[in-house]
């Protein structure tokens, strides 16, 4: 069954959508869109290191992204620059360094477009295992830290005062973010992973009045985006990542109609 490349891409996409929904909600709630972007951009460096050392790609990306997250925290503590400037600094420099390193590795043939925008043909059976096992682990850990993470998202001091441990939850969440980037890079690509986290979630926000609903709609939106995106990728021979994200955008635009209705009802 998994011998067909398209089925593999579809199964991979479904797995990613299930994880991206809930994680994406926290990315939006905690205003971490650019943080996600920075981690994703650093993933390219992870890929090059994996290739040059013949190391597991997902593990390598995971380690590099986590390292970038740690560096960011250090820079935030030690410099007077605002967070968005630091994020931009890390995002673009890690992307640049990644591309420069690729330039040096002339003995390996890289599919740069595939790395940046995802490649429907690139997903193999081993990747499916990584996505589903890794994804299940991510969701399990997220379930365990849900209460402190959610409470501190609403109000940090309240969560801490009432005995939850928001700092630990935040650190673990950062690791989960690095992990989903690591498992979804092949299908969606370095430049568009954050879109997978944010756009279905943004759509879900337009349709929900409570957090649980928003998570569920984000998952449904992600699944629909994967289906529509991959089928059109197959049909029109477009790269998989942009096709999925474009599908998500169309869904988002439709969800705006609902917002408009609610606003009219209010008036």
């Amino acid at each position, binding site marked *: 069954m998994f011998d067909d490349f398209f089925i593999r891409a579809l199964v991979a996409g479904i797995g990613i959508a299930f994880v991206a929904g809930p994680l994406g909600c926290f990315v*939006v*709630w905690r*205003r971490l869109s650019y943080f996600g972007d920075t981690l994703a951009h650093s993933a390219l460096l992870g890929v090059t290191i994996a290739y040059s050392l013949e190391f597991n790609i997902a593990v390598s990306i995971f380690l590099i992204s986590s390292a970038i997250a740690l560096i960011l925290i250090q820079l935030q503590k030690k410099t007077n620059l605002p967070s968005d400037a630091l994020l931009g600094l890390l995002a673009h420099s890690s992307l640049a360094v990644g591309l420069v390193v690729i330039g040096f590795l002339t003995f390996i043939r890289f599919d740069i477009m595939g790395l940046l925008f995802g490649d429907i043909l690139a997903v193999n059976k081993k990747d499916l295992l990584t996505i589903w096992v890794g994804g299940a682990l991510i969701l399990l850990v997220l379930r365990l830290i849900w*209460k402190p993470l*959610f*409470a501190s*998202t*609403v*109000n940090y*001091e*309240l*969560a*801490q*005062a*009432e*005995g*939850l441990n928001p700092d630990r939850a935040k650190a673990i969440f950062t690791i989960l973010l690095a992990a989903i980037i690591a498992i979804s890079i092949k299908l969606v690509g370095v430049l568009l992973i954050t879109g997978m986290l944010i756009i279905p979630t943004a759509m879900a*926000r337009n349709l*929900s*009045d*409570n*957090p*649980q*609903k*928003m998570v569920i709609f984000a998952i449904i939106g992600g699944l629909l985006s994967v289906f529509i995106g991959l089928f059109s990728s197959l049909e029109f021979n477009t790269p998989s990542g942009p096709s999925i994200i474009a599908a998500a955008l169309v869904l988002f635009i439709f969800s705006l109609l609902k917002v408009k209705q609610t606003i009219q009802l209010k008036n």
Partner: protein
Amino acid sequence: MSIENNILVKLNNVGFQQNQKWLVQGVSLQVEKGKIVTLIGPNGSGKSTTAKIALGLFKNIEGKVEKFTNNIGYVPQKISIDWTLPLRVRDFMLLTDNLTEDVIDEALSLTGVINLKDKSLGNLSGGEFQRVLLARAISKKPELLVLDEPVQGVDFTGEIALYELIKEISEKLNCGILLISHDLHTVMSATDHVVCLNGHVCCSGSPKEVAKNSEYKALFGEQAAQTLSIYEHKHDHVHTDDGDIKKN
């Protein structure tokens, strides 16, 4: 020892500085079971900071905080709910604890906002939001309640009603309450101990019955006079402009 004395939290000569400026310094106080301690003082006098020190929200503090309970309900002074997070009152009630539907209803009824249970948090008025905050803090039946200006944004009659409710809660749950008042001169009558801050403890003592003050009664009515008390400051020192104690 703490159990015998019913002490829930004890601050011993604590202080906190940020960017080389002391926000508050040399504060000692304790909150006991069933007692209400009220903090008053001008803006920027370190009331909220003191409450946060008691809650353990700062890492590098001077002095010592001893906390003998982990069951704490907190109403922060400022809380802004981001519109990106869709949150109903019922979701907010479950924020830090898993409560049953009955417990949530009971707390919301006590503060008189049960009708708002399915409303979105972003659509509440200031007074409604304050009542929801209070309901959330008491719903878990805490041993220690820390209320940072719990009646802000509530009109005067509502304020009296909320103070009466706080007194009722303190009696019912037998919890200790650390209350920050936004008013410099009036505190709720049920207060056992008043601490006046201005970067340090200016003075402290018990409140004086407002009810005896006929002018006040004439102005605000019988009920208000019974709920509120006047605190007469007994300052024995003079402040410099930045709040330090002037040395002679």
